[in-house]
């Protein structure tokens, strides 16, 4: 990057562009710019970066449809009331839950253990990059290697 003149550093110019210099220094630099093409050029370059980046990001064409997004939203207008169970009911509910879980587990049914779909215990390969990934939702294990 082309340097500024010896009077001001590039960082001063950067702060000038953002109006973050003290008032006295700001006016001093503003006056200096009239006679210094190097500093003036740098100011323009800094400003141009902002303008171009703004222009680019403002034309992504992205749009969110509020109606479609709302469908993902569960709107609760009323908070569910808290239920307080007496000791006896809690015990009965616990017994029922445990018995049902045991029944399914014994039959190898619905009960699923948590954890990834596969635990990788070893990998042996010539390839330089291997990745082991677990998906967020169903914790599906993926082993990815690159042949290059």
């Amino acid at each position, binding site marked *: 990057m082309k340097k500024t003149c010896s009077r001001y550093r590039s960082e001063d110019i950067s702060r000038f562009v953002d109006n973050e210099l003290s008032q006295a220094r700001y006016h001093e630099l503003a006056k200096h710019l009239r006679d210094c093409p190097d500093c003036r050029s740098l100011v323009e370059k800094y400003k141009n970066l902002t303008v171009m980046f703004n222009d680019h990001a403002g034309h992504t064409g992205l749009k969110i449809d509020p109606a479609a997004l709302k469908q993902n939203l569960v709107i609760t207008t009323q908070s569910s009331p808290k239920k307080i169970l007496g000791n006896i009911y809690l015990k009965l509910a616990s017994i029922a839950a*445990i018995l049902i879980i045991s029944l399914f*587990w014994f039959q190898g049914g619905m009960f699923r253990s948590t*954890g*990834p*779909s596969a*635990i990788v215990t*070893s990998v042996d390969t010539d390839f330089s990059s291997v990745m082991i990934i677990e998906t967020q939702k169903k914790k599906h294990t993926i*082993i990815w*290697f690159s042949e290059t």
Partner: protein
Amino acid sequence: MVRFIKIILFFLSIACFFSQPALAKTKILTHVKVIHASTGPRYVDPGLKKIIPELKSVFKYTSYRLLKDQRLDQHFHQKDRVNLPGKRTLIIMPSDMEGKRIRYQITIKKNKRSVFQTRVLLKNNSSITIGGPQFNDGVLLFNISGSAK
């Protein structure tokens, strides 16, 4: 309350003990799906509908074609081969169970030379996806599922 919990846990553990399959008689049904994933025109093979959401959450491929769907009836320490595109072979062998997981040894060979080998503990009735060698402007993915009976 503590005594009550202990009794319940005792009966649960009895249930667990009886739920373990006898190893000697265990049959493993291994299902290998060979998938071609690419960034071509959007397509999802109907046979892949279950695993596609998981793959799509990781990969940006737009087309998923099922090239091969092979079911293998295996016993422990039985090696089976699945021929793959591009002069590759997948060799799969279940060796034993650890809890509810099936231990598999999976090898991929290219031109008869082993290029990738892994040992995994696959949750019963679950699957793992391995990939991906380059193939036809895309990659190959191997979805392997196992079920112990």
